[in-house]
């Protein structure tokens, strides 16, 4: 189950809408071991593509170092799908390299209604989980 703040949830959706039709991406850091997503960090999609996203590698190093300094870890890693459903693609699964993170997908394919879903991706296996917005 993913428990996430209403404000952070809304900001993730707003980020996805802003970057549409390119995929948006980012993460939410939280205290190591807490499973609490507390600090939203929207990232640049270095691929700037409607079908692919990638964190800029230098920005990613800076962010990972910062999280390490603050004793945080990536609790949520999010990105958007702009024409397909909010479900991890084969590419998403093959790249998923943070086994402790909740992988959040937002779909902006419908301008009137967004989809916000969360998944665990461990050893290539996708498991959907409930999202509780608090």
């Amino acid at each position, binding site marked *: 189950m993913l428990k996430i703040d209403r404000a952070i949830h809304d900001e993730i959706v707003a980020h996805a809408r802003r970057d549409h039709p390119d995929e948006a991406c980012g993460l939410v850091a939280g205290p190591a071991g807490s499973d609490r997503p507390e600090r939203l960090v929207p990232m640049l999609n270095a691929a700037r593509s409607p079908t*692919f996203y990638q*964190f800029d*590698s230098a920005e990613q*190093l800076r962010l*990972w170092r910062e999280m390490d300094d603050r004793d945080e870890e990536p609790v949520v890693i999010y990105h958007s799908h702009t024409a397909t459903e909010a479900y991890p693609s084969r590419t*998403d699964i093959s*790249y998923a*390299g943070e086994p*402790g993170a909740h992988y959040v997908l937002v779909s902006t394919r419908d301008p009137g209604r967004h989809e916000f879903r969360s998944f665990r991706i461990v050893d290539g296996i996708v498991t959907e989980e409930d999202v509780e917005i608090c």
Partner: protein
Amino acid sequence: MAIEIRIPTILRSYTGGAKSVQASGETLSALIDNLDAQHSGIKARLVTDAGALHRFVNVYVNDEDVRFTGSLDTALKDGDSVTILPAVAGG
């Protein structure tokens, strides 16, 4: 020659849980071979069968992404620090 390598969570099963290990090598390629000699199997997660760096990992030498410094041919010297992170990407 001793080079410190920061290991991401997903590869710590190869290093017995260690976040940081030491290895030696004049190039990144040699370093990875030496790392694999100590922690068997880790090379296959970093280098493809064709001998190139996997697109699923970012490797940094002294904070520079090695994709800009010659990839596996990047030269190393004593005291350099190497960081490995899983590339965050998808489609």
